[in-house]
């Protein structure tokens, strides 16, 4: 047998190491998905077969989707759909890397805002403009899934990121549910506090949920509708008068929040509300099912913290169109994935999803039978602003801008908080 010396062995291993080095030096950016824009149209026909992976972050909706999958498979015997569920934070951080290879997420959902933009830039979405599904949606709500001229995704859910209210506590305190301006809103909080309850339960210790109140506070304060885009671009500043004014209003809210609000996570905040200790939960309608599961039996309404001074507010509330459904351009089962999206977009199935999860959908002609959804349905026709915080493309900027609210509620002056946030924005211009 041929023998080699230690030196030769080291040379062989060294060559392997060098090979690894050279391989490592291949340029970044390799991908199976084409980059740059929305991919070709999802096939409208073809074999609805194979194993479709449906990637999303709504773990709480798993059972509902399981039932819908059962119905879909009953109609299409050669197909199997499996859910690939991550937590919302993980999905937000790693969703794109997970899905872009095509092995996971033949069909997928994205958050509105930076994640949707990243997915479209990475070319993960296919064109749905001429799909069967698109006709089922309310036209005015489709914009959140558009990228240039393309209809990359279909925003499935409509949520109202506004405080939810315990109507019984409001009635008991004699507080009005629809304050016409900021003074009326503060007056309402006063009445609730006088009746012995905490007016607002706010999860200030949870960046994602605590930041939803920002959508309400900024909607009528900002001079333009794309205020967060302009802040990110440096055209508007956190140190502008209107922004400082908004922070002053946050400061006025502080006495009406639960004690130590900045350290409260979302679950305890939900508990305060569902146990009737707090009259409002300042997150949004997407927590309806959660608070019901925690035992809330009282009727629930939405309250808009109207920040206008004179009662002439531009908007009566805020909404968000999210859970943007799409078909993966790198999928090997595109026809089946497209059929699954079509199926979800049928009014009957969208209605089942909505009523079971207590969330409105942007699909037309849906019959809302869930009592909470029925009660809140008038909000679908009100003049509401599209939630502003999802305009931010840079999450560091978003977190810095929203952190001004937490800082002010903790006792920092609005000016100081605004300057600290603007510094971070300026660093990223």
């Amino acid at each position: 047998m041929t023998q080699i010396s230690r030196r030769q062995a080291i040379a062989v291993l060294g060559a392997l190491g060098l090979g690894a080095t050279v391989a490592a030096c291949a340029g970044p950016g390799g991908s199976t998905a084409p980059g740059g824009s929305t991919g070709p149209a999802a096939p409208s026909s073809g074999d609805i077969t194979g194993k479709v992976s449906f990637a999303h972050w709504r773990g709480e909706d798993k059972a509902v989707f399981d039932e819908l999958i059962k119905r879909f498979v009953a109609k299409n015997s050669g197909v199997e759909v499996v859910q690939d569920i991550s937590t919302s934070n993980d999905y937000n951080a790693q969703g794109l890397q997970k899905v872009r290879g095509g092995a996971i997420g033949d069909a997928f959902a994205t958050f509105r805002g930076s994640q949707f933009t990243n997915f479209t830039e990475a070319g993960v979405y296919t064109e749905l403009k001429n799909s069967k599904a698109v006709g089922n949606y309310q036209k005015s709500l489709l914009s959140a899934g558009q990228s240039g001229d393309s209809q990359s995704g279909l925003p499935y859910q409509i949520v109202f990121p506004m405080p939810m209210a315990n109507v019984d506590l409001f009635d008991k305190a004699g507080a009005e549910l629809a304050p016409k301006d900021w003074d009326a809103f503060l007056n309402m909080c006063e009445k609730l506090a006088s009746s012995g309850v905490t007016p607002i339960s706010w999860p200030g210790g949870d960046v994602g949920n605590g930041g939803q109140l920002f959508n309400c506070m900024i909607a009528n304060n900002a001079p333009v509708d794309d205020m967060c885009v302009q802040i990110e671009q440096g055209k508007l500043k956190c140190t502008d008068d209107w922004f400082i004014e908004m922070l002053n209003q946050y400061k006025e809210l502080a006495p009406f929040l639960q004690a130590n609000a900045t350290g409260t996570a979302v679950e305890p905040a939900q508990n305060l509300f569902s146990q009737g200790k707090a009259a409002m939960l300042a997150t949004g309608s997407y927590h309806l099912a959660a608070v019901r599961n925690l035992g809330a039996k009282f009727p629930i309404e939405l309250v808009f913290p109207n920040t206008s001074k004179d009662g002439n507010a531009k908007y009566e509330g805020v909404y968000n169109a999210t859970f943007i459904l799409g078909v993966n351009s790198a999928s090997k089962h595109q026809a089946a994935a497209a059929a699954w999206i079509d199926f979800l977009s049928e009014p009957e199935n969208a209605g089942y999803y909505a009523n079971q999860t207590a969330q409105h959908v942007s699909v037309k002609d849906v019959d809302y039978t869930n009592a909470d959804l029925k009660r809140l349905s008038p909000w679908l026709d009100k003049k509401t602003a599209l939630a502003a915080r999802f305009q931010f493309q840079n999450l560091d900027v978003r977190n810095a801008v929203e952190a001004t609210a937490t800082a002010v509620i903790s006792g920092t002056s609005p000016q100081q908080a605004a300057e600290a946030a603007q510094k971070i924005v300026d660093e990223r211009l």
Partner: protein
Amino acid sequence: MSTHLGMATKRKAPGNRAETAAKKRRSPTRVSPALYLFPLPAVLVVAIFLVMPTLQAFQYAVTDWNGFSAAFNYVGVDNFVRAFTKDSLFTNALTNNLKFVLLVVIAQTVFSLLLALLLTKNSRGNVLLRALFFFPTILSSVSVAFIWKFIYDPNFGLANSLLGAVGLNGLQSSYLGDNNQALYWVAMTQVWFHAGQMMVVYIAGLQAIPQELYEAAEIDGANKWQQFKSITWPFVAPATSIVVAYTTVQSFKAFDLILGIAGNPPKSSLDILSTRIYSTFANSEFGYAAAQSIIFMAMIALVTWLQRRLLRLTPKGE
């Protein structure tokens, strides 16, 4: 005769060759090539999963790659310069991390040594207590984070409830919600989590100290403090070295504990280097995140080296 001798000499030559060959066979520098195949799987695993990603991190660090686009630009050392001069979030995370490491290293080393000193003897009670203090170590960091998140909750949490029950309402706090205190509370959690593990390292060191030394010291009239200073501490120096180095690395990488306890993204008062790098990756700045990762790696190496230099924790006599 000469012929005989000559023949003998001639016969010796093949014998020499055989001896040399045998020597070569015995020589540790000459082995069968088949033997070199055995480490090959390990070499490949290390090359693919450790060497290549590390080298790639260096390459990405000098680009502005966003993590998904095919296009990117080489930006030289801009990412490194940006981290230290134009990114207050990064410098804030660095400051937080150094503060966190300092707090945890001091508290955990002292606390685990104290526990070890109290529980060195192998009595039944001590074994039970050791198991109790070691228990948090076997929990997952996410479980630990959720336990302590509940304890620190200002509304329903155990800490404020206990303080309220004994009438110390004035001491009730927002804990993680207070930017000035949050890092200290998380450091306390980290110490609770890992002190038991370090206690075991110390106990092993303490049990190796010859008892005769203490007996001799007692005969010489040395008090407990003098015994600790002159016998115990020098003998547990190697264990301290391990504890300090391990705790340092652990504290730099308290990623899962911080995310579990503070959520994602953590607020700026709880942002440490590993969570900042994660946020930068999530923000689709792969090139910049790679540069931050390299700084992070260098920081751990530097701090560990400085500790070894400054503490000079070598056993007596070495």
